[in-house]
């Protein structure tokens, strides 16, 4: 087998025809993405019970769009294994960054409280979040 390293040739002989075939696909995707954008906007005016669920729905659609863009426009589908490998790691690490900071945020020592605007006059907190006895903790400037 003779490996070509000639820099002037396309690495893949039938690339051009392959590309031509995909152009139609890109067009379809364009309309699809526009439709999804409209959907995102539309859906944000629907109330899904709580803001949280609106967020979930919005993010799902955004993820779908992002997935389409990367899979097709960025040719990730059919991209080489080398690239997939480190992208997967990247994905794991951002997720780790999100989840772990979130967890740390949500799991303070019981009895921890955070400063609030209602007590901005008071550098620390008025109401304690989960302190077993509230009365010993002063409330803020509302007094």
């Amino acid at each position, binding site marked *: 087998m003779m490996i070509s390293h000639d820099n002037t040739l396309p690495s893949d002989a039938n690339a051009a025809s392959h590309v031509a075939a995909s152009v139609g696909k890109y067009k379809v995707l364009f309309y699809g993405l526009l439709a999804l954008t409209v959907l995102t906007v539309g859906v944000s005016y629907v109330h899904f019970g709580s803001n949280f669920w609106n967020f979930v729905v919005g993010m799902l659609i955004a993820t779908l769009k992002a997935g389409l863009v990367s899979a097709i426009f960025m040719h990730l589908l059919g991209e080489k294994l080398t690239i997939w490998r480190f992208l997967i790691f990247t994905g794991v690490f951002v997720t780790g960054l999100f989840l772990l900071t979130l967890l740390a945020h949500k799991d303070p020592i019981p009895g921890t409280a955070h*400063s609030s605007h209602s007590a901005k*006059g008071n550098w620390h907190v008025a109401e304690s979040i989960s302190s077993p006895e509230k009365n010993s903790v*002063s409330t803020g400037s509302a007094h």
Partner: protein
Amino acid sequence: MLNKLMGIVPNASEHGLPVEHMLEICHWVMLMLFLGWGTFFLYTIIRFRESKHPKADYYGVTGHVSSHAEFVVVLVEAALLLGLAFPLWGKRVLDIPPEQGEVMRVRAIAEQYAWNFHYAGADGKFGSQSSSLVSPSNPLGLDPSSVEGKDDVVSKNELHVVVQKPIVLEISSKDVIHALAIPHMRVAQDAIPGSKVPLWFRPIRSGKFEIVCGQLCGAGHYAMRSHLVVEKQDEFDTFAKELSDLQHPSASSK
């Protein structure tokens, strides 16, 4: 024993004992590992130096010694984690003693470069505060009209607690991050502006101990020292009364 050898300050709190114990075990493990590895290391570099052993052996060690050694390390670490570390931390943060019973709650509020200790007084309730009242003479902005605050007292740079009585410190800061660290009590907690975090311990020895500011907080960080005074109940009461007389002269004249 290793701890002593390394000059650890004497323990003065209840939970300090297991902490110390664990540190001791850690050091023993480390020492054994280091000695084991170190002996092997010294023996090897002496025995296999070029002049003594001119022809190297391509295969070297062929068995699985290293896996065994590594496995032992894993086991020991797992044991330390499960047996000691998790329960200890659990006790620290999940078993904060409730208000009922013999517990004292004190607020520790840091500022550049001093600690303010705010006691709730006889009623066990903290009075309200307001920023508009903050001034050099009233660093916590205590509200003089607050009923709950009538008996509150504040002491600067000196925390008095009662021996054997659990104490819960609610730690926060006015300006930057500080940390309240009491080596003798084996406790430390960052004082983070915008948060108030509880920290508890039970002193088991009377005496005067140093409180260190453990987080860089500016040019005066190194000198932000205060004291923990662990004393008997009656001594504490005298202290509280003195402060109260000073800070609420009208109330005491009644």
